[in-house]
């Protein structure tokens, strides 16, 4: 197990290096350099000069990448151009909010999706399955901003239960902040449940058709035991990895949802950063998201390895 963790950590470093290169290269694509990009029409030769010197833009790209990457490895992601604050601190303060949002959505959606997916798999082709599958299909087909907009329309504009947009002042306490989470988290939950339940349903159907479930049935043990002891663990194992791959991929949706609700998380920060062409901040966020992706997948991998006896003996 330890060897596996070490191996996976090393691979993660490789992954993150690739991410760093690609992100850096893409920001190099931006017309002009960071300085002109940042100032836009307000650029004056003096201002540009000063900023360029400050950022060391006169050096070649490879050299700048090396120094940026070197500092990033030590935890220094530079300063935001727009806010003149350290990128790391900016991200950290927003990350907390995004984690809160994602955490709430995850805690609600994963158990809900598992339950619905299992029910749908068990009742394949019957009414419950058709209902659940249809809802899931619709959930998958609606863009996040549409779900968000509909929720705003129904719950905040028509019924006026929750605030439509998040308003945070410096003195807003945690408890006062909570109502702001409900709508974005609900939006995220709807989309995630739709995807995860579909996946659980498919694996469940596969497993229920397997010979070992048939054998368990022929052993005359109670149906509940067949489902819980024989089918479920085997259906969940592949789901864990898939959920991880998906959660990381669905982070894109978080960006949209935070924008819809003006929710002060990393996603909103990213959109603002891109609009402001705040290159150090963009790079910092990209790296942060990649780290999250890698971590989630690492955890999922370790989880399946420790739960699946076949993988356990395979990987020692």
């Amino acid at each position, binding site marked *: 197990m330890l060897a596996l963790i070490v191996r996976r950590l090393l691979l993660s470093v490789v992954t993150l290096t690739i991410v760093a290169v690609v992100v850096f290269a893409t920001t190099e*694509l931006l017309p002009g350099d960071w300085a002109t990009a940042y100032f836009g029409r307000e650029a004056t030769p003096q201002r540009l000069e000063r900023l360029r010197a400050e950022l060391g833009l006169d050096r070649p790209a490879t050299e700048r990448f090396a120094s940026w990457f070197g500092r990033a490895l030590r935890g220094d992601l530079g300063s935001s151009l727009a806010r003149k604050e350290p990128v790391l601190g900016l991200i950290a303060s927003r990350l907390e909010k995004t984690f809160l949002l994602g955490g709430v959505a995850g805690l609600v959606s994963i158990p809900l999706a598992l339950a619905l997916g299992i029910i749908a798999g068990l009742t394949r082709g019957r009414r419950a399955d058709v209902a659940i599958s249809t809802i899931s299909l619709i959930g998958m*087909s*609606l*863009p996040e901003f549409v779900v968000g907009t509909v929720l705003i329309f129904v719950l905040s504009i028509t019924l006026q239960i929750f605030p439509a947009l998040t308003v945070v002042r410096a003195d807003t306490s945690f408890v006062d902040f909570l109502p702001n989470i409900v709508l974005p988290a609900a939006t995220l939950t709807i989309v995630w449940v739709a995807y995860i339940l579909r996946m659980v349903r*498919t694996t469940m159907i596969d497993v229920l058709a397997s010979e070992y479930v048939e054998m368990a049935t022929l052993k005359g043990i109670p149906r509940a035991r067949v489902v819980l002891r024989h089918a479920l663990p085997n259906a969940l194992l592949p789901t864990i990895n898939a959920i991880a791959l998906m959660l990381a991929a669905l982070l894109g949706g978080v960006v949209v949802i935070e924008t819809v609700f003006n929710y002060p998380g990393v996603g909103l920060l990213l*959109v603002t950063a891109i609009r402001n062409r705040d290159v150090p901040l963009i790079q910092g966020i990209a790296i942060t998201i990649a780290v999250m992706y890698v971590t989630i997948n690492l955890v999922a991998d370790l989880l399946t390895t420790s739960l699946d006896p076949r993988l356990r003996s395979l990987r020692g």
Partner: protein
Amino acid sequence: MVGLTIVVVHLILAFTAPLIAPYSPTHIEPSVRLEGPSADHLFGTDSFGRDNLSRVLYGGRVALLVSFTAAVVAVTWGGLLGILLGYLGGRVDEVVMRVIDGLLAIPSLLLIMLVILALGSGFSVLVLTLGYGYGLTVVRIARGATLAIVARDFITAARARGERSRTIVLRELMPNVLDVLLVEFAMRSSWMLLAIASLSFLGFGISPPTPDWGRMVFENSELLAIAPWGTVFPVIAISSMVIGINLASDALSKAMGLERTQEAPL
């Protein structure tokens, strides 16, 4: 069947928009701003007094074209690379897959926004960036499907005969992976539609004044309380289109016996 019907209706409407739209989608008529549905304006008008119906009819054209083309791009390069990696195996496969895994760690949405910021949201930029982003997952899927086939004896037979790699990939492997790729194509197109809508909503999509569903939702959602129809109709348009594609791709994969775990969009 239902799915296919929806898709076809959408395609027809998009193609014939210039013929059936009652107004020009960009025509501004200040006298009829934010009107509700009426005989003159079936879907009402927006804050500039533009006809919502005409804008909805036109609003899918670019998005549909972009997403179908980008899906072709994604499935082509992703599929070919995936098949090749699955066939070659060994070191090449290991190294390239490591890079692909690394690239998957970058949210495509971020990358696409950056590229659009740098190069503008022209047709080819959108097609290429979306085609790239979604192709990464296609590589994984095509490679997986290929691995299952490469182990079969008819590939061994072809290798033992001494067929060239190109022949093996194109004649032996390709026909067996094609159905997987076809389903991929259908699913990718629906996700791309969603992505384009989201991009437009964030202000990175097809640039105004070209009408676009995502952008319409964005522009009109602020006025949701007073003029909901401006939001409602484009929302219905996007959703029904995506539902249609999803239903069709479900039916497709079922018909091909490929009912399987679906991967995530971005």
